[in-house]
């Protein structure tokens, strides 16, 4: 064995993921082939559907908005060494905060309703994560268990709230009253007709702000520093005078509040009312997004866009190629996660070797090594 030379940075962050993505599509292509459809056409459709026209792009961005929020939620907790699986539940209950404020203020103006709803949704979502955080900090209860449990509790709570409390008695559908136009978050198409009928709305601005905010929080504030110390080495953080218990509680709260922003996008931006299960698993996608994005805002942005594109492209695929069902889209998404996330190391060794052969000084090295080897 020889001294491993790391591959150049550009190859690491661009080439390798690209190769992996290609592989994911290739394997997906086989699945498409299995149902007798043309895989190249399918990929074309996905890409066109996700980015090719305004409305498609709008949908991609709309999905990505959710994934940015849940991805950030997972990432912020992960920075402090906490694994928050509860994004789904936190986003779900945050819907209560959003819808209550929106319904109360839908006679005013969205400029009033939206900030207050953001606070309310953040507070409710934050609370839903604070409790597991508190239990972890004070009682040592593992957040992984408690957040899973809180997802289920949230689901039960919301079925009750929607059906027994928020639903007007006379309607059939399990949903809250509709928010008046003044209380809704404006959709981007109101400003740019380019986006067609897509539901992407001003929540995406909050998402971008959240990305920047998290970046600053984690890498440019004392709090973020403390958070990272805790995540990397809890003993060192006590040594550094950081209160681990407070950090855990605050970090979980921030994480839950971020997940709670999904409610703004869905409840105030798209559905205009609270419906059952509006989160639709975005919290779990957030785990994949955060992991693939290496818990870094830029990575999360890219991963969220990728998943948004897969969602929207997959939908397009269903329209265009009727033989392809929604399950196949899930399969394709899973393959993308598998190859670009879990198996990202697949090509690293060959790539390292390739670079070794192509760079002259390293080439000399490689030869020296191999001759040395054959001598022994």
């Amino acid at each position, binding site marked *: 064995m020889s001294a491993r030379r790391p591959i150049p940075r550009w190859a690491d962050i661009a080439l390798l993921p690209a190769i992996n993505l290609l592989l994911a599509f290739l394997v997906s292509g086989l699945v498409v082939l299995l149902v007798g459809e043309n895989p190249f056409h399918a990929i074309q459709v996905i890409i066109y559907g996700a980015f090719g026209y305004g409305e498609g792009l709008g949908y991609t961005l*709309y999905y990505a908005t959710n994934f940015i929020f849940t991805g950030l939620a997972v990432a912020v907790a992960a920075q402090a060494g906490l694994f928050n699986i509860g994004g789904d539940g936190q986003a779900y209950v945050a819907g209560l905060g959003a819808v209550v404020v929106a319904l109360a203020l839908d006679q005013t103006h969205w400029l009033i309703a939206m900030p207050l709803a953001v606070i309310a949704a953040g507070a409710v979502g934050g609370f839903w994560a604070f409790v597991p955080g508190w239990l972890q900090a004070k009682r040592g209860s593992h957040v992984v268990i408690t957040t899973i449990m809180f997802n289920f509790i949230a689901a039960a709570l919301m079925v009750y709230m929607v059906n027994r409390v928020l639903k007007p008695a*006379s309607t059939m*559908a399990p*949903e809250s009253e509709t928010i008046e136009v003044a209380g809704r978050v404006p959709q981007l198409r109101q400003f740019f007709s380019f986006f067609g009928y897509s539901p992407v709305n001003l929540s995406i601005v909050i998402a971008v702000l959240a990305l920047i905010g998290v970046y600053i929080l984690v890498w440019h504030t004392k709090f973020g520093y403390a958070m990272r110390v805790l995540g990397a080495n809890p003993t060192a953080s006590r040594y550094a005078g950081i209160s681990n218990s407070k950090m855990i509680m605050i970090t979980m709260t921030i994480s839950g509040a971020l997940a709670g922003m999904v409610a703004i996008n869905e409840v105030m931006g798209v559905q205009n009312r609270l419906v059952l299960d509006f989160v*639709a698993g975005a919290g779990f996608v957030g785990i994949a997004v955060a992991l693939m994005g290496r818990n870094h805002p830029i990575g999360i942005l890219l991963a969220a866009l990728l998943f948004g594109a897969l969602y929207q492209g997959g939908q397009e695929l269903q329209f265009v190629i009727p033989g392809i069902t*929604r399950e196949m889209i899930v399969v394709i998404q899973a393959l993308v996660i598998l190859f670009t996330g879990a198996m990202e190391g697949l090509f690293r060794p060959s790539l390292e070797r390739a670079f070794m052969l192509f760079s002259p000084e390293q080439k000399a090295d490689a030869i020296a090594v191999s001759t040395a080897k054959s001598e022994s």
Partner: protein
Amino acid sequence: YDLGGKFDKSFNEAAYNGAEEWKKETGGSFLDLELQNDAQREQALRRFAGQGANPIVMAGFSWTAALTTVAAEFPDTNFVVIDTVVDAPNVQSIVFDEHTGSFLVGALAALKSETGTVAFVGGMDVPLIHKFYCGYAQGAKAVNPDVKLIESYTGTTPAAWNDPVTAGELTKAAIDGGADVVFAAAGGSGLGVLQAAKDAGKFSIGVDSNQNYLQPGSVLTSMLKRVDVAVKTALTEAADDATFKPGLTVLGLGEEGVGYALDDNNASLITDDMKAKVDELSAEIQAGTLTVHDYTTDSTCPL
């Protein structure tokens, strides 16, 4: 189709079958789509309308908001929505009197029960399912005022509609609680009810489509909700503006939109007396002499 998926053996599948039948009879073709999440509703409608599909038929109460928006955008397209009401000139809303159909199977259940206890397993505690329960309970009480009712639901997440295991356990619990007839209104989970009742040698009642054949000899009957007929009729009628009937269409016992299933599979389970009694109740309801309370009108269920 609603989020439960196309082939749920009951509601969505019935819609699909209706469309298939229409296709077979008329030679027409249809586009169909399953949704992954709520946001895709408007997108799908617009897409179909944009492609010139006419009519567009939707099954499920969750379509209200999306349809309200899109129907206004495509005034020349005819829409038919099942299970909810959208007030627009180009929309036909079809709702079913599930409560009366459930009333009849409730009566059958109480008549069949030897223990005097009948049970209900719903998918999720949502108004539509309550409407089933409320009708069922009233029917059971109507023939046996002392009947004991056990009411339960599989879950609180969308998995509730696809969780035969929990539904089966609920059924076993109900049977342990003395029930010997269990009505399943739980989508895909209902299969677990039918199985568990069969395993225990008790009776079950299917829902939406005729499910008698699934466990012959154990499924007492099925509460029919002829979505297939509705879809088929809608496709036929709404294709032509001349026959298209915008506004509200209520399909009840009279229209044979709801009812109970009687076929070879359960013929031996339902005695002539039982059939006579239920048919009598059915006639009374249709005549208006017997009213069955509809839960969804005021979210209460007077028993």
